[in-house]
């Protein structure tokens, strides 16, 4: 039987994906502000921060309304709970992008510290994780979500690598401290973005399969 | 629990079962005894002549009761025309309208009217319809029977109208039907099975009344024309023939009794059939 509730759920999903696309775009633009030395990109990211935050509020209100009025069960309930969590992670991703954009503005005042090798690799990885976790939601694809979970370690390793490299640069030449320090912050932000993408993937698995795969270290028998 | 107690209980059960069974059997057998008696004694007199010929003059054998059969039907027709509409509308009033006190009065008097001896009703009809015109008539007989039909019709109409669920009336009114339209288009059709049954049973009941006809319709050995002449009827014929000294007449009386009983039984069965059919909807 067709329910108008299904139409509400579909609309909610579309809004969430729209928010996701805004967040993806923010990350991409913020990182390329650094990599391509395009300062105006950083300004764009800062100006679009409000849009993402407003969407978080809108989506939360929709979820609240649907939970209160429709008494959802089973997959519908899991979907709404997953949306609520993913909502928060997307907003945090937006915040991280803003942080990267702010760092970009400061970095671009100084000459480039070194050729960017690991940073682009890391940003591509993080962006792909965000994109794939959202695609996994659209397609209900557990496998894709699992692949996102596996990539988190790579991102962490790249961050550690970048930290070590940049620390060496800072120790060699004290004039480079300002720029190098901001680059470390950017790396940290990207690693956090990866974590949030991982969270989204976990929520997708919860929605699709009903399994809570967070904190596998905890013995939950 | 002690054994003699159980024994006492069991025997008491058995005795009661037997007693009630015998009584029930007695009830059934009475009707069949009457039927059997009538068939035995009157069956032989039933013939084509019986249904088509007029009574023969005193002393001659043969002849029939055609005029009495037709007469009874004419009287029932008059009773129906005069009594059923009154009973129906009064029943509608009691069930649908009516304040508390007035309805109570109407119901009570209806029951009283039902209990008035039929001969008294006959006398009443006599003073109403015979005395002023100084002759007996079918019309007068119809008046008497019509009065008797009213109480039964009122009660059964009211009962079946009340049995129609109130929410059906509400549904009709919520669609914009006035009170009377609701009654006419919803309530009466819904109760029609029961009301028709009640009417049929009322007519069957008065078909066998003899006393009121004795001084209203009186009787007639020939065909009666129109409505203003005395008219023969089955119950009166039975009485007349039964107290006469002729054997042939006695046999014809038995036959008439059989016909009358058959008419009443068939009406009863017909009524039950209609009721069952209407309930099955």
């Amino acid at each position, binding site marked *: *039987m*067709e*329910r*108008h*509730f299904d*139409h509400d759920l*579909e*609309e909610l999903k*579309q*809004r969430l*994906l*729209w928010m996701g*696309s*805004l967040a993806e775009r923010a990350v991409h633009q913020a990182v390329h502000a650094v990599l391509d030395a395009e300062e105006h990109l950083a300004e*764009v990211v800062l*100006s*679009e921060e*409000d*849009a993402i935050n*407003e969407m978080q509020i*809108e989506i939360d209100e929709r979820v*609240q*309304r649907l939970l*209160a*009025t*429709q*008494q959802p069960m089973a997959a519908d309930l899991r979907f709404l709970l997953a949306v609520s969590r993913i909502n928060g992670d997307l907003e945090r991703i937006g915040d991280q992008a803003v942080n990267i954009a702010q760092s970009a503005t400061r970095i671009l005042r100084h000459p480039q510290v070194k050729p960017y090798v690991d940073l682009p690799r890391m940003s591509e990885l993080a962006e792909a994780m965000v994109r794939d976790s959202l695609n996994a939601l659209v397609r209900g694809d557990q496998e894709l979500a699992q692949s996102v979970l596996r990539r988190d370690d790579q991102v962490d390793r790249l961050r550690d690598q970048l930290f070590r490299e940049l620390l060496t640069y800072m120790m060699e030449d004290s004039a480079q401290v300002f720029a190098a320090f901001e680059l470390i912050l950017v790396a940290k932000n990207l690693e956090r973005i990866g974590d949030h993408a991982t969270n989204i993937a976990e929520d997708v698995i919860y929605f699709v399969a009903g399994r809570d795969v967070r904190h596998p270290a905890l013995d939950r028998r | 629990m002690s054994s003699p107690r159980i024994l006492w209980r069991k025997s008491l059960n058995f005795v009661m079962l037997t007693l009630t069974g015998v009584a029930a059997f007695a009830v059934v057998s009475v009707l069949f005894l009457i039927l059997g008696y009538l068939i035995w004694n009157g069956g032989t007199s039933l013939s084509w002549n019986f249904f088509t010929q007029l009574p023969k003059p005193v002393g001659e054998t043969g002849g029939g009761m055609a005029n009495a059969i037709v007469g009874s039907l004419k009287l029932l027709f008059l009773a129906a025309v005069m009594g059923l509409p009154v009973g129906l509308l009064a029943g509608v009033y009691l069930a649908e309208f009516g304040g508390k006190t007035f309805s109570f009065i109407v119901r009570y008097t209806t029951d009283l009217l039902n209990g008035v001896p039929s001969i008294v009703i006959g006398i009443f009809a006599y003073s109403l319809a015979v005395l002023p015109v100084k002759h007996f008539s079918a019309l007068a007989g119809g008046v008497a029977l019509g009065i008797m039909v009213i109480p039964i019709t009122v009660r059964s109409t009211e009962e079946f109208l009340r049995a129609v*669920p109130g*929410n*059906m009336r*509400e*549904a*009709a*009114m*919520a*669609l*914009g*039907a*006035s009170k009377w*339209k609701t009654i006419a*288009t*919803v309530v009466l*059709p*819904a109760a029609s099975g029961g009301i028709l049954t009640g009417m049929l049973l009322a007519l069957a009941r008065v078909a066998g009344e003899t006393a009121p006809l004795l001084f209203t319709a009186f009787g007639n050995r020939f065909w009666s024309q129109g409505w203003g002449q005395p008219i023969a009827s089955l119950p009166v014929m039975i009485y007349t023939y039964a107290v006469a000294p002729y054997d042939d007449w006695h046999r014809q009386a038995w036959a008439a009794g059989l016909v009358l009983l058959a008419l009443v039984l068939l009406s009863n069965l017909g009524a039950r059939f209609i009721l069952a059919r209407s309930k099955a*909807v």
Partner: protein
Amino acid sequence: METAATKEKIVSGAPQPALSVKAFRDPVPMEKITSPTIEHKQRLTISNLNFYYGPKQAVFKLNLKIPTNRVTALIGPSGCGKSTFLRTLNRMNETIRNTRVEGEVLLDGQDIHSLDVVGLRRRVGMVFQRPNPFPKSIYDNVAYGLRINGYKGRLDDLVEHSLRRAALWDEVKDYLKKSAFALSGGQQQRLCIARALAVDPEVLLLDEPCSALDPVTTAKIEELMFQLKDSCTMAIVTHNMQQAARASDFTAFMLDGHLIEHSETSKLFTTPTDPRTEAYITGRFG
């Protein structure tokens, strides 16, 4: 150069069309349902309504606006007067002896007590708690309202139209001459809805229409109400709060004959303003 997404607060409650995948490439403005009553048109306006069964007062100074083309739910514990109140809206209480109404009920600005009651009941239809089809055929049931109101046109078309609106046409189209009692409980209730819709009422009052029905049938009827909204204003009395939450746009909570709170359904069930409302909907009493 992309611009920041803007949000226009559009004052309408119309159901939103589904966004396509393409939509999330463009900055689409968000439309929100704003807070209740004032912006919507009012089909029914009730002012200072008092109702008495003989000496006993059942409804106290009730003020309520029922918005056009929306579903308004009336909730409250047993005996709080919600059914009594509903029945004043089509003057059905006049069929009970010894009742008295004070106050004003306006239908599109006209006082219903100055209108002819038969005409009023054609414009304000009612569906009852237990399905009550007439002992006639399905066709005759739906056509009844039309016939008694003197409709002269093609009955067949209207009967079909009403049965379609009640989502019953496909199930009965080959059996229109069959008795209405041959239908199941849920079908009978939908038949009663079709019957009420046949005269094209502006308002449909539903008095606990699903309380005698199973959950699947109830869901069907709730979905039906959602589809009818565009053409019909509805007021539903229900003792089932979840149903009120699912199926209505606005909810009014009544207690002991008083209106305690009336607001948009999603708001009333998430952040009610009156503590009694909160106590009732959380099941702490009633």
